[in-house]
């Protein structure tokens, strides 16, 4: 019987397997950031252990960094200590680090691909659940906790239980104004936040093939929001072209590519679960609740919990509407927004900024809201400035910031106030995610830009 793409990669990385034990998997790359690594390095020191492969490890600062005045000392002493701790650990253990001010500083999942260090057929981990982003290149990439970060630092391996395999086929052609973000939000709304639990999802089908590499990253990024261990897409010519010319592209590109070309699910491979989605029918999507599965097409209305049969889901919807300050039946497009956030590992890459700028060009954002534009990395920021996108955003009345995770998780000063409502291109609409008491609606960059202009949730077609 044939193998799925993920099974091929998994099997290629088994260092040891024994009955009744998890497989010991070799890890090709570990990405490190300041929030989930300090305790891991401490553990190494306590045990007198070294980092086994500093040359398969790379660090950057993203979660806790300011997006203003980045070259001044960090104002919050606790944040400063965390960043300084990462810098000291990188130095002590010989790990490459891209710090504030460096072109390759930024959201860790934007940095890997831009360096060309994310490649097909790899196993990639990071102490961050959105590591699934790298699956867009045909890699098994997944988030881990700090104990596992330490484990990989010490051994370059991870004991892992083989997940089940799911295929999600997205067939057809997206309508104008419908994007990769809408695909993944629709998938999560369909299978739920636990639908992918225990699975690696392979995204397939003509609509996925049609996406750019950056669009594919957006889809894979939010695999975790469906509960999946990882998400991936078979590499193709687009993947190879994206890597070619990047700083860490293989020197022997032909040999690498001939291996990469073997990375696809065999026609007789067996998936534990297959789901199909019709791309032609998709609309711009937006979340109305407090988990990413609570989403609807933007043309819809806030649902009535009384219509939900399942008691658990009904209770969750009631709580969500209360927290979100929404009334059942309100058209989603009537919801007024206070802050638009464009950025994150989901939608902070150059194509996302271009898409939003194409809508905002020559227009002004509504006087009732603020808009933050936070490039995913310093390199993305520089590229955008080269293209004049910063000017488009500034002329429209938006704020043009430095790179980082920023308001996606509200760990740095970029936060929503109590009761403030955002339209955000990020990945999580959890209670308080973007600031205590803040209310989040997840949207695509196109919807974010149109919303910024109109002041209420909108798609470009509404302009």
């Amino acid at each position, binding site marked *: 019987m044939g193998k799925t793409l993920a099974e091929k990669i998994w099997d290629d990385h088994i*260092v*040891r397997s024994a009955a*009744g034990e998890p497989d010991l998997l*070799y890890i090709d*790359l570990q990405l490190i950031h300041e*929030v*989930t690594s*300090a*305790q891991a390095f*401490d*553990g190494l020191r306590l*045990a007198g252990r070294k980092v086994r492969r500093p*040359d*398969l*490890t790379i660090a950057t600062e993203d*979660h*806790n960094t300011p997006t203003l005045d980045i070259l001044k000392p960090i104002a919050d002493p*606790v*944040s400063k200590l*965390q960043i300084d701790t990462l810098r000291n650990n990188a130095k002590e253990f010989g790990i*490459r680090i891209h710090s504030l001010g460096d072109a390759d500083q930024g959201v860790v999942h934007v940095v890997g691909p831009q360096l*060309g*260090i994310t490649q097909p057929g*790899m196993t990639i981990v990071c*102490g*961050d*659940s959105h590591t699934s982003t790298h699956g867009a290149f045909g890699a098994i990439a997944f*988030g*881990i*906790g*700090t*104990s596992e970060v330490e*484990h990989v630092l*010490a*051994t370059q391996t991870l*004991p892992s*239980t083989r997940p089940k395999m799911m295929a999600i086929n997205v067939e057809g052609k997206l309508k104008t104004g419908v994007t990769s973000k809408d695909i993944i939000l629709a998938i999560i709304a369909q299978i739920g*936040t*636990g639908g992918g*639990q225990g699975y690696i999802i392979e995204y397939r089908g003509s609509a996925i093939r049609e996406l750019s590499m950056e669009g594919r990253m957006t889809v894979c990024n939010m695999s*975790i929001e469906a*509960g999946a*261990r990882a998400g991936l897409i078979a590499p193709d010519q687009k993947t190879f072209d994206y890597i070619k010319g990047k*700083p*860490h592209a*293989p*020197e*022997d590109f032909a040999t*690498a590519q001939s*291996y990469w070309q073997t990375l696809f699910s065999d026609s007789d491979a067996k998936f534990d679960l297959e789901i199909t989605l019709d791309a032609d029918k998709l609309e711009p999507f937006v979340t109305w609740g407090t988990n990413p599965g609570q989403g609807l097409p933007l043309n819809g209305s806030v649902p009535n919990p009384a219509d939900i049969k399942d008691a*658990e889901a009904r209770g969750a919807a009631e*709580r969500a509407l209360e927290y979100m300050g929404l009334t059942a039946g309100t058209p989603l497009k009537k919801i007024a927004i206070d802050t638009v956030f464009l950025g994150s590992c989901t939608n902070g890459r150059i194509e996302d900024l271009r898409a939003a700028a194409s809508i905002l060009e020559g227009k002004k954002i509504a006087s009732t809201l603020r808009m933050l534009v936070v490039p995913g990395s310093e390199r993305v920021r520089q590229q955008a400035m080269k293209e004049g996108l910063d000017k488009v955003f500034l002329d429209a009345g938006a704020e043009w910031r430095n790179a980082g995770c920023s308001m996606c*998780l*509200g*760990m740095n000063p970029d936060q929503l106030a109590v009761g403030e409502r955002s339209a955000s291109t990020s990945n*999580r609409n*959890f209670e*308080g*995610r973007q600031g*205590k008491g803040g209310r989040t609606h997840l949207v695509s960059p196109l919807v974010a830009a149109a919303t910024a202009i109109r002041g209420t949730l909108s798609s470009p077609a509404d302009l």
Partner: protein
Amino acid sequence: MEKFISHTGTGVPLRRSNVDTDQIIPAVYLKRVTRSGFEDGLFAAWRNDPEFVLNQPQYKSGTVLVAGPEFGTGSSREHAVWALQNYGFKAVISSRFADIFRGNSLKGGLLTVILPQQAVEALWVAIESDPTTQIKVDLDSRTVSYGSTSVAFELDDYTRWRLMEGLDDIGLTLKQTDAIDSFEAKRPDYKPKTLPIRI
């Protein structure tokens, strides 16, 4: 890691589903560089509400959290496990856990027990009708028992053995260093390296 064989304590009924790790501990509490002191951030947003279950005096000394389905979704932050442990929880019971949270908890010695939703509901009722109900979570027999009720749970033999012996995962893997060495010797040259730096 401390051995986990059995724990007996009172329960805290958390009747919510999809309790994500941002709820367990919001990002602003993740700035510490130690593994301790995270109890202040545990369920921080809800702790302001006097009605919240942890603020009710009868549940103050609970050590077994009994939660709704999809517990621990979202961010991979192991701080969520540390916050629960720092607060005093020894075990969490739910019908479904998010994968990363569950992995983190079992690495760190916080026992996450999967029971059918029906058994979780029964346990909620038992705790709410008598908050002093003693709940025994026994890894040896893989059962949760209280009053005259005993419910079996599944946990793979390997993880159970590791927890009961209190074994450090890294130490176990380092015994396989020869296998890692020989795997590395066969890795293809085209696999990327982060060093030396190429720009």
